[in-house]
């Protein structure tokens, strides 16, 4: 009779029959699935379930929407604002309001290693004029955000309990309106994720802002703080790539393309 516990034995058997379910290789397999759907110009929905439920919606091979039950979705007005005639700055802000929740949800699905199910046709959400995000762009942005989260993960994750520091280090600190909104919503047992839901902001954005507030000693995180203090989060370090990786270049256009 086998000495291997039943649950572990079941996992071993599952892994041998369904190699795509191996935990360590799963993100690259999911990325490969997205790439195939993009290349094929697919339209429909790729559902995810497991650690976090959600779905990624495709139209003609581009990602037009993503949702996760662990991240807030876009504001109801976001797509309407995007569709309306706006000045350039308003349009850029509308672009951000539409794309940030999509990328945030996709990041969560990949980070939580939710399992994707069979791609199927589905009624697509009404996203107005949004043309969609290229799969490679989305994957590159997810990779960049994961590297950034990894930098700070020893101190702060979306689910780390945070609290306001009753004894701030300095009398004079300048913070943004978004950081202030975050700060005043922190109560007993708050985490960046539930504050993000309160604010209707992306979880990633809330984590990065919370980390900045930790650096300013306006917030405290549960657990040990490194003796040498907190390092400033670096986007440049997150942009460092392994050979062969790509980085997100949204809306890039070269002079050569302009002349076509």
């Amino acid at each position, binding site marked *: 009779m086998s000495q291997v516990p039943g649950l572990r034995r079941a996992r071993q058997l599952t892994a041998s029959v369904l190699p795509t379910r191996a935990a360590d290789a799963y993100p690259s397999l999911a990325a490969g699935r997205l790439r195939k759907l993009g290349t094929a110009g697919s339209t429909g929905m790729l559902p995810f379930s497991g650690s976090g439920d959600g779905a990624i919606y495709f139209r003609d091979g581009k990602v037009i929407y993503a949702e996760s039950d662990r991240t807030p979705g876009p504001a109801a007005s976001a797509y309407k604002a995007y569709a309306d005639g706006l000045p350039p*700055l308003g349009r850029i802000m509308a672009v951000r309001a539409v794309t940030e929740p999509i990328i945030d949800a996709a990041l969560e699905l990949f980070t939580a290693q939710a399992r994707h199910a069979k791609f199927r046709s589905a009624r697509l959400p009404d996203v107005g004029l949004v043309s969609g995000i290229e799969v490679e762009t989305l994957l590159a942005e997810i990779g960049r955000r994961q590297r950034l989260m990894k930098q700070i993960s020893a101190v702060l994750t979306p689910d780390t309990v945070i609290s306001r520091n009753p004894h701030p280090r300095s009398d*004079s600190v*300048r913070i*943004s309106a*978004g950081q202030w909104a975050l700060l005043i919503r922190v109560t007993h047992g708050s985490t960046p994720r539930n504050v993000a839901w309160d604010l209707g902001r992306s979880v990633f954005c809330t984590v990065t802002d919370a980390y900045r507030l930790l650096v*300013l000693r306006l917030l405290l995180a549960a657990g040990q703080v490194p003796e040498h203090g907190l390092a400033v989060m670096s986007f440049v370090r997150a942009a460092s790539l392994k050979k062969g990786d790509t980085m997100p*270049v*949204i809306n890039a256009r070269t002079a050569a393309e302009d002349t076509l």
Partner: protein
Amino acid sequence: MILNEAEAVLDPVADIEGFLLGCLVDASTGMILASRKDQGDISLPTAAAGAADIANVLSLLAGELPIDGLEDVMVTFRSQLYVIRLMSEDLDPNILLLVILDRARANLAMARREIRNFCVNFAA
């Protein structure tokens, strides 16, 4: 490509003498929202990430020193000029404009004026 029309907003910046690269960056997340590039050998992601880091580090000074908010940053390299400007003080999250210019061809004073005017018109 996401949001094809977003890149067109950077057309006026691309007309600046010596223009090499321009992009709009979300200062909070470091995400590039739109970009224009006239030269292939500049790493847009690295340049944009650097601009966001510089702006974030300088914003830490704002509470410690008697300065009234960051307006723009100019970095001079031997062959290039980097101009980083906050699109608007009132935005949250703030959007940064990064413009990289060829130092041999650009007039920094004129370029800065054009970038400032662009930002004013951009928000109007």
